[in-house]
Structures are given as structure tokens and as C-alpha cells.
């Protein structure tokens, strides 16, 4: 296990390096001059030229990439070009919000999606199953930005129950601001619980047709014991992967949800910085998102092997 983890972490480096090149290239190739964006439309060409030199934009692209990579290696993420705050403090502000949203949404999605999938699987091809399956396809087909708008339309505009955007006064305790979280969480839960429910259902159906489940039934065990003690544990192993992947995705910021509800998380930070051509922020945040995503994948793979002794990581690779 240890050898496997070290190996995976080392393999992370080339992928991160390629990702950093890709991110840097995307930003270097993007149209628009950051110096001009900063100074506004009234700046003279001389002023723009001075600003370009100050930002180091006159250097060749390879030199700029080298400087940036060295800085990132030293954990010096630079300063935002639009509001002069350090990039690490911007990320430091946004990350807890994204983490909170991701944890709450994921927990609720699991609490709803898993039982739905199990009920559907144990009643496969009956009416309950058809209802759950239909609900799942609906949950996966409804675009999250539309669902979010409908929630705002109903709960904020019509009923005036919930605030439409933001996270409230940052100084107030969290439990007083929970109402700001309800709609963003619901938006994410809708699609995630459908994903989970669908995977739990198919994993459970697979397991319920195995020999050892038939043996357990033949022993005369009640159906609930068979499901709870024999089937469920094995069915959940493949589902762990999906949970991990979804979590990694959410940690990178639920871009769409965050922009609908003006929720100040990582995803919104990226979108706003792209719009403002605030490249230091875009670069650093995207690198962070990729890193989180890759590390979650490793953790998922490792936990997979831990939960299922049949998976031998060292030998398989």
C-alpha cells in the first residue's frame, strides 16, 4: 500500500507539470491585454507599455512560464491584478465556502441517493423501481442552472422565503446563515443524488445476483439480513469511487451553482477572474483545482483497495 501511494504521488508530478503548461498556455494565448484591462480604456500606449514591463509581460513566454512555475513551487502565488490582494488570501476566503457547500451537499446527496438506489434494486422491475429510475433520469437531465433559477423564482421571488444570493453577513454565526445555503445545496443535491442512486441501484442489482447472496438466502436468512449484511457492503465498494469523483469535482467549485447564487467560492473566483483577465488568480486557482482533483482520485483508488482486499494495487500496476 505504501509503495503504491508513493508511486501514485510521484506519477502525479508529470501530470501536474503538463497541466501547468496547459493552464499557462491557455492564459498566454487568451485574447486581451491584462495591462490594458488594469489601466482601463483611457490609458495612453506609453502607460500600457510601462505596465506591461512591470507585470513582466515583455519577457518571452518560456521565461514567464519558468518564473511562474518557480514561484508556485515556492508557494508564492502572486498578487491579484484587479484588487491587489494576495492570491493566497483570495483562495483562503473562497475555499472554506466551497468546502462547506461540497460537504453539506454531498452528505445530503448520499443520505437520499443511497436509500433510493437500494429500494429500487431490491424491487427491481417493479413500480417503485420505475419511479426511482424515472426520477434519476430527470435529475440528470435538468440543467443545474435552470433548476437554480426555478428555485430562486419560487422561493425568493414568489414566496420571499429565502435570500437569492450571497452567503449573508460573514460575521454572523453559521447557523444564522444557513438559509443562504439551502438553495445552492438543493441545486447540487438534485444531480448528485441521482448519480448516486443510479450507481447504487446497478451495483446492488449485480451483487444480489451473485452466488453468495443466493447461498445466504438458501440458508434461510431473512431478506433484510441478506441485503444489509451480505449485499450492501459489497455493493458499496464500487460506489465509493463515484462518491470520491463527485467530491473532487465539487471541491473544485460548483461553477454554475456558485455563479447563479453569487456564492463566493472557488468556482466563482475562477469565472470572475477569467472575466477580469486576472491571470495570477486564474492560474493559481486552476492549479489548485487540478491538484485537489488528482489527490482525491488517489485517495479514492487507495480506499478502494483498502475496502476490497481482492484488489491488489502493487501487482495490478
Amino acid at each position, binding site marked *: 500500500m505504501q509503495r503504491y501511494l508513493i508511486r501514485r504521488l510521484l506519477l502525479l508530478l*508529470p501530470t501536474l507539470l503538463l497541466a501547468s503548461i496547459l493552464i499557462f498556455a491557455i492564459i498566454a494565448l487568451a485574447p486581451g491585454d491584462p495591462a490594458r484591462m488594469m489601466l482601463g480604456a483611457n490609458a495612453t500606449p506609453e502607460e500600457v507599455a510601462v505596465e506591461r514591463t512591470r507585470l513582466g509581460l515583455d519577457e518571452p513566454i518560456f521565461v514567464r512560464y519558468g518564473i511562474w512555475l518557480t514561484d508556485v513551487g515556492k508557494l508564492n502565488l502572486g498578487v491579484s491584478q484587479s484588487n491587489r490582494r494576495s492570491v493566497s488570501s483570495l483562495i483562503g476566503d473562497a475555499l472554506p465556502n466551497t468546502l462547506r457547500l461540497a460537504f453539506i451537499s454531498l452528505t445530503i446527496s448520499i443520505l437520499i441517493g443511497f436509500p433510493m438506489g437500494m429500494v429500487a434494486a431490491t424491487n427491481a422491475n417493479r413500480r417503485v423501481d420505475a419511479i426511482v429510475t424515472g426520477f434519476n433520469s*430527470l435529475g440528470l*437531465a435538468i*440543467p443545474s442552472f435552470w433548476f437554480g433559477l426555478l428555485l430562486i423564482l419560487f422561493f425568493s421571488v414568489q414566496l420571499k422565503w429565502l435570500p437569492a444570493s450571497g452567503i449573508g453577513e460573514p460575521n454572523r454565526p453559521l447557523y444564522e446563515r444557513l438559509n443562504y445555503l439551502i438553495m445552492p445545496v438543493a441545486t447540487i443535491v438534485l444531480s448528485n443524488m441521482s448519480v448516486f442512486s443510479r450507481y447504487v441501484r446497478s451495483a446492488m442489482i449485480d451483487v444480489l445476483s451473485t452466488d453468495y447472496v443466493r447461498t445466504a438466502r438458501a440458508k434461510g436468512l431473512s431478506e433484510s439480513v441478506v441485503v444489509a449484511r451480505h449485499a450492501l457492503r459489497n455493493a458499496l465498494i464500487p460506489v465509493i469511487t463515484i462518491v470520491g469523483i463527485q467530491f473532487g469535482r465539487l471541491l473544485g467549485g460548483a461553477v454554475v451553482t456558485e455563479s447563479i447564487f453569487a456564492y463566493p467560492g472557488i468556482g466563482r473566483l475562477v469565472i470572475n477572474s*477569467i472575466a477580469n483577465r486576472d491571470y495570477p488568480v486564474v492560474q493559481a486557482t486552476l492549479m489548485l483545482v487540478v491538484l485537489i482533483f488528482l489527490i482525491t482520485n488517489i485517495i479514492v483508488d487507495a480506499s478502494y483497495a483498502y475496502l476490497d482486499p481482492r484488489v491488489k494495487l502493487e501487482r495490478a500496476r
Partner: protein
Amino acid sequence: MIERPPAPTTQAAGGAASPVSPGQIEAIVAPPAAAGTLKRLTRNRKGVVGLTFLAILLLVAGVGRFVVPFDPNEVHVAAQLAPPSTTYWLGTDVLGRDVFSRIITAAWPAVQAGVLAVTLAGLIGSLTGLAAGYFGGWIDACIGRVWDTLLAFPAIFLAIGIVSVLGPGQFSGVLAIAIINMPVSSRLVRAVTVGARNADYVEAARALGCSDWRVMTAHILPNCIAPLIVQMAIAAPDAILVEATLSFLGLGAPLPAPTWGNMLGEAQSYLARSWSYALMPGLAITLTVIGLNYFADALQDALDPRRIRAGSGNA
């Protein structure tokens, strides 16, 4: 087991013990692949529903924009954000443009984006997957590493990044969606290719002096077609969803042209004044995605040899 072709009506009337007609033998010996798939599709309810959805969507996308009641960009100053009425079936937007006409007109760019993106991803995916699987070694390693890197990004970030380089627009959206779909197609084709690389018929083709290119395209590629088509059918509704997301975020086709995504983006600012404007375009997206998912599901059943052999089709 070979599928029995539909008996001609005259034959069906001819009695139970009638011998097989020459026409039937021909059909059994060489069942036309597409017709066989179509028949299997229409045999179960899921397939019929999926095909119907697809037909309606294609019809609306193909001819809808020529028969809509209003020009989608025609401004009606007197009727801004009007509720649905007999004149404006689904109401109007903030400039007084007819929402129904705009939704119908937007079906074409949506279908176009889905089909183009998935086809492009399939093409590049096949070429790279074939090369990776057939040659192996460093070619395989390099191609694999590129896909690993792309998969390290959450798809929507990658799409947004690519679009912001190329500038917002339909073409860059399609390209971005194609790129995020390439790793999956490529890996699929690679897996099939690795399986077929050392098969006897491939060895035989090589022994007969076929070039690598010919072995790959004429002997290995046909094996990849069925799984690739299923994968493309699964990816298409997703592609339409991503395109809508990009246009919602203001990164899609430039503004006067209607897309479902940019209509919703606009509707967000006027939620307090019009409920129908925010409702309808989203309904169009949802129906399209559900219908296409249904179709993809049914197509998978129809093309999966294991399910065909099992003879059920309505699993």
C-alpha cells in the same frame, strides 16, 4: 442466433408450415446491419420512445425555424416580458421577442453543437485510440499522458478555459466540448484495438501484406464502430447540456442569436417580472436531454451483442 427478418405480409398469410422463401434466406444470410438495429430498437417500448423523441427533435431542429410564427429577433416594443397568450404562445422576452419562436429556432444550434462536438471527438478519438492501441510503446504512453492531463481538469473548467482562449462563439464551444469528450472515445477505441491487435484475422491481413494503415482502418476499426456509436449517443445529450451551460455563462454563440442557454442567462435578470421566460427554455433543454438519453439507452440495448443474444431487448 440469427435475427429473423420481418416476414413479408403475403408470407405471413400463407400458413404456419410454409417454407422459407428465397427472399427470406437472403435476408437471413446478409441481414442489413442498420435495418437490424432499427428493428431491434423498435421492438421494445424504450426504443420506440427514444426514436420518437429523436425524430421530433430532428424535425423541430430541421424545419422548425422556417415555420415559427415570428422572426426570432423581431422586437415588439409594446409587448415586453408579456405572459403567454394566443399571440405569443410562450410569452415574450425583455425586448418583446417571441419566446416560442426563439426556443424553436435555438433547437438547430443545440443539435448542431451536440452532433458536431461528438463527431469531432469520435474522429480524433478513433485516430489516436487506434494509433495508441496498435503501435503501443511510446506512442501509447504519450497519447495516454495527454488524456490523463485533460481528465485532471473538471470538464467545465476545461471548456471555459478553451472558450476563453478562442473567444466566445459557437465554434469554440463545439471545439471545447469535443476536446473534453476525446479522452473517453480514444480510450474506448484503444481498448478494442488492443484486444484485436493480435487476433488471427489481423495477423492474416498483415501476412497478406496489408499496410499498417489498412489493417487499422479496414480490419480493426470496424470492431470499434458499435461501441463508439453507443458512446457518442451517450455523450451527445451531455454535450448539449455543456453547450447550454457555456451559453448560460455568456460563452456561447454571440448574442442576438437565440440559444437555450443564453435565453436562460437573460431570464435570470428578469425573474421578478416574468416567470414563463425562465421556465420554457429550461424545459426545452430538459426534454431534449431526457429524450436523447432514452434513445442512447435503447441504442445500447440494440447494439450490445450480449443483450441481443439474450434475446430480451427490454432489460
